[in-house]
Every structure is written in C-alpha cells, then in structure tokens.
C-alpha cells in the first residue's frame, strides 16, 4: 500500500501532541505543588493554533493572551524553559519573574503573553509600524481569545492596522468562554469576522477541530498581511477544561463538554493521517516521544533552583540606570545606629 502522507501534516500533528502533552504536564506541575501559583490557563482543545504558527515565517513576531502556551510552543519554544518559567525558576524564559501569563522570548519573536484581556493587541500595531517603516517583510500576529472581542482596544487596533496598511494579523482563538461566560452571553452579534471586515480587514473563520483548515486560512491571511493587507482569523474551538486550574466549570453541562471535547483537533488530524496511510503505531510513537519530552521538561522545572531574592530588584529599569532602593536600605538610613543626631 502506498503511503501518501504529507510530512507537514505530520509535523503539525506532532506539534499539537507536544502542546497537549505540555499542558497535561502543567497540570501535573500544579498538582505536585510546584507551579508558581494556580493562574494556569491550559490551551487543551485549542491546539489548532498550530495552523497559524506554522504559516508564520522566521522573524515574524507575535503577542498572546494568558492562554498562550500552545502558540509559543508552535513558534519553537523550548518546553523545559517554558515549564521552568511556569514554576517560577531562574532557568525560565523570564528568569522566574513573569510566569505562565507573562512568558516572552525576544529571539523567537514572542513580544509577550499578557494577563490583561486585549493588552497585547496594540503591540502588533506598533510592530507593524516598525516593519512597514523598515520594509523588513516581517509581520506581527496578535493572538487573543473571544473575551477580547469585547475590549475596545481591539477595535482601536484593527482600525489603525487597516488605516495604515500594516503587516498585521489578528487571530481570535474562540474557545467559547471568557472565564465562565459563554460567548452567546457576551456578544451581541456573534459573527466576529464580520466585525473585522467592517474595519476593512480581510476576515475569515476556520474550524478549530481541523488544523489543516486553520492552516489553509492562515496561509492566505499571513501572505496578505505581508503585503500590507492586515487580516483577522477566528479559530472556532472549544476549551476542554476550566478557565484556570481551580475552575471545575460548574456553569456548563457535562453534555455540552462531551460535545465540545468531541471536536478534538488531535483526533481529526489522527484520523486524516491514518486515512492517508500512516500506521496507528507510527502515531503512537509520536505521542510517546512527545510525552517523554514533556516529562523531561517537567523534571527540569521541578529540579531547577528559584531565582535569588536580590533578583527582585533587577530589570525594573535597564542595567546601568538608577534602580529601585530596597526598603531595608531606606529604613536603615532613617533608623540605623549612628544616623540620628
């Protein structure tokens, strides 16, 4: 039997499996009591963002929302450094100062995850101005959730991108929930691409259960953005679990969850690859490799040392410029022995 498997498709399956395995290990990190806090927002069910990250080129930049682990892995992140950051360790991407919600990496073009809904969206407008002015051919992509569709900053930003013909793509990962509020309880009109189109953007919606559909839509929008025609893509997905680790989703029914989880981008991809002739055992091997890799990332994060206490005072401002004065030094100057006349 002839195998006609597209290696890019296999690559996207592998990346989606790595994302899911990573997110599962984030859950384990929390259960072990090793995560820095419980503000951990898993992107399980939203792995088809790989369709967008795969359409981007080296040098392209991006910002994400608080549920952005998958996007960052899709752009090439080292899971060990990510997991260490989520654990608040010095070997993490942000030396343990940002955590899950503020992970960033200049080298990979990650201009920052954001814990303010919509907060990172205008940054791609500014990056777009940079790339337009330098004729560098780069684009910038903002990833955000359906919650940000209710933030004014999105509309200010889309207007500017359209007005100035910036190389920018706005990507809404619609997982149907802003915390506990389902999108039909937050959106007066649910046609999100229509909103973007009204601002003059090329706009599309893709099935978040099908990474190849997302990729096909993203490829066109990414290339248009590179030509100064900014776009908007909605990925129609489902958030498989609660908002954050502590949320058991009491606001939705088991029936709804079962239906949503059936729209699994990993299953869709697996079935397609098997239909194309890939053996189940080959896919299992990919899964096992991803699991082992993420086990190593988890072990690294648990074993890594925390940052030294004095690190809290660095990087408030650039090195070589006046730094914050530690409170103890101020108090000693007032109350210390020999100070008072």
């Amino acid at each position, binding site marked *: 039997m002839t195998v006609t498997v597209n290696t890019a498709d296999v690559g996207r399956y592998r990346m989606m499996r790595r994302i899911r395995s990573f997110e599962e290990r984030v859950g384990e990190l929390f259960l072990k009591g090793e995560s820095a806090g419980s503000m951990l927002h898993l992107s399980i069910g939203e792995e088809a963002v790989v369709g967008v990250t795969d359409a981007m080129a080296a040098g392209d*930049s991006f910002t994400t929302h608080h549920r952005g682990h998958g996007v960052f892995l899709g752009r090439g992140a080292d899971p060990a450094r990510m997991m260490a950051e989520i654990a608040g360790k010095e070997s993490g*991407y942000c030396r343990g100062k940002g955590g899950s919600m503020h992970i960033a990496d200049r080298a990979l073009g990650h*201009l920052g995850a954001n814990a303010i809904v919509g907060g990172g969206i205008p940054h791609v407008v*500014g990056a*777009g*101005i940079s790339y337009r002015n330098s004729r560098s051919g780069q684009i910038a992509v903002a990833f955000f959730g359906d919650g940000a569709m209710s933030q004014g900053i999105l509309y200010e930003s889309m207007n500017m991108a359209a007005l100035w013909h910036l190389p920018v793509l706005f990507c809404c990962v619609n997982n149907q929930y802003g915390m506990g509020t389902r999108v039909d309880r937050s959106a007066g009109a649910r046609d999100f691409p229509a909103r973007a189109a009204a601002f003059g953007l090329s706009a599309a919606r893709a099935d978040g259960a099908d990474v190849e559909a997302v990729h096909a839509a993203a490829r066109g929008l990414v290339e248009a953005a590179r030509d100064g025609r900014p776009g908007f893509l909605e990925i129609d997905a489902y958030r498989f679990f609660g908002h954050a680790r502590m949320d058991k989703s009491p606001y939705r029914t088991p029936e709804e969850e079962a239906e949503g989880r059936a729209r699994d981008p990993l299953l869709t991809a697996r079935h397609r690859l098997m239909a194309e002739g890939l053996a189940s055992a080959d896919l299992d091997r990919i899964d096992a490799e991803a699991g082992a890799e993420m086990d190593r990332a988890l072990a690294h994060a648990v074993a890594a040392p925390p940052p030294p206490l004095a690190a809290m005072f660095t990087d408030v401002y650039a090195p070589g410029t006046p730094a914050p004065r530690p409170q103890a030094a101020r108090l000693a100057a007032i109350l210390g022995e020999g100070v008072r006349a």
Partner: protein
Amino acid sequence: MTETTYREAIGRALREAMEADPAVILIGEEVGLYGGAYGVTRGLIDRFGPERVIDAPISEAAIVGAAVGAAMTGLRPVAELMYVDFIGMTMDQLANQAAKSRYMFGGQIGVPMVLRTQGGTGRSAAAQHSQSLEAWVMHVPGLRLVMPATVNDAYHLLRQALTQPDPVVFIEHKGLYTLKGDLDTERPDGAWGAPVTRRKGRDLVILGYSRMLHECLAAAERLAAAGVEAEVIDLRCLNPLDEAPLVEAVMRTGRAMVVTEAAVTGSVASEIAARLSEACFDWLEEPVLRLGAEDIPIPVAPALERGAIPTANLIRETALWLVTREAPPWAA
C-alpha cells in the same frame, strides 16, 4: 545661547532627535498636519513624512499601545497624549504594559518610548483639561517621569529622555509654551535625575517643579524683600530623583515646603515631604509642609481656578508663616 520659547525648544529637540536617529517617530492626535494642539510639532510632518510623523485616530489607548510595540521592535517612538487628563484612557498600556514589560520578561524586552503630554491650569480649560496627574505616573515602578520648568530643560530633558532605555513620561505645562528663555544646546541645567537649585537661601527650602517653579521663584523674590532668604529647588525629574541635594538643603535650613499644582492629597508633594520628613527628622525645626491645589476638581471660572492653586503670594505668605510662626490674615 539663544533666546527661544518653551514650545520651540521642545519642537527643536524633537526635530534634532529625528534628524540624528531614524528610529525616532512621532505618533499622536493632530501631531502632523495640524502641527500639534499647542503647535509643538509644527512642520515636522513636512520634514520627515507621514511614516515618521503619524497622525493617529482618537484612540489614546492604542496610540500608547502601538508605541509600546514599536519600541519593542526597534523604533524609538514619541507618543503624544494631547492632555494628561486623557491618561486614564491609556493607563493599562502605560502602567501594565510599558512599565512592566522589561521586568515581567526577565530583562529581555525594554520599552524605550517617550510619552509627551501636558497638563496644568491657567486657561480656564476646566476639570477635564487642567489636571496635574503626575502622581499617577510616579506611583508606577518602571516609568520614568520628568517635568521641565525652563526653556533649557524643555530641550535637554527631552533629548535625554530620547536616550533612555525605559519608558519616560514627559509632562509639559500648557501655561509655559510661550515662556521665553535662554537655550544653550551644549549645556543642560543639570544631569538626568538631578534636582537643580535655582536660588540659594539660608532660611528655608521651597521645592517646586513645572510651572510652580516660577511661582516659587517669584515668592522667593518677595520674601527676600521681607528679609527671608528662601532656597528654591527645581525637582525637574521625579523618577529618577537624586534626593541627596534635597536632604542636604533641608538639613542646612531646617525648614522645607513642597509646592505642587496638583490636588495635594496623594500628590508628588506628599511623597517628597514624606521622604524629607524621614530623612531629615532630627534636623527639622518645623514639619515639612505641602502646599498644593485644593482637593477639588479644577473649576472653569477664572477667579475660582486661580483660587484653587498655589500662587506666588500664597507661597510667600505660607513661607513667612513657616519661618516666623506669625499667621497670615487669611488663616482662621
């Protein structure tokens, strides 16, 4: 050394910075064709074109947010907020994004941008166009804050701000744009972060900044006629701020008064007074006084507006009270 205006000094600083560094861009409402609401950026769009002098829609949050993104990716943007009163529209981008990116991202991504804006009273612009909101900025770690009072400082502090690796909020005063003064492009009044003593004196220290500096200096002139020698210090830079010269002066005189045009509660004057009280406690003859605007919105009627904020006369009378302990006639 040439005589020019505060407005022209700022415009010149922008023009020269843009000539020296192609990464410098301007973005804001009416900064291009209109030339700036107060005329500061007049002519710059003709010289540098619309890709570097960007007329933005009325979207303050995205103007500052775009400047953050531009700064992260190699540009050195100067965002303009037409009135500091509009800062509430931008506060997430300023306080959560610009201020914290370097820190949250472990030092990887700085935001070398300048936010130019202007505030203050004097034009009957009423409650939403007359405020002095610098305390909101000073409270946020990660933001630098400067407020020039003189023509020379308007030029040099802006040129210096445009060399800083971190976000700088540069607050002008609408009442100073027509101020004339000497500009020496070779010689700043002081280093970045250093307060400048504008007048020496032995009896008390009056600390002011922005337009209030001029009221403080006028008050000191009148105090001298009454035999009281006030030292007047211009704070200029509120972050960073080298406190050592302030502490030295207050220890030397034993009396200090901090003057602000902002509502006094929770103001920059409150913070400076607290620092001086802590640092100089055993040297103080009297409490460190704060003198600011009344804790009210700024009213539109010219007489009420004038009455709401410190004047040279109020500063003089309050200083005399502090030094002589003889109450002025208006004291109840």
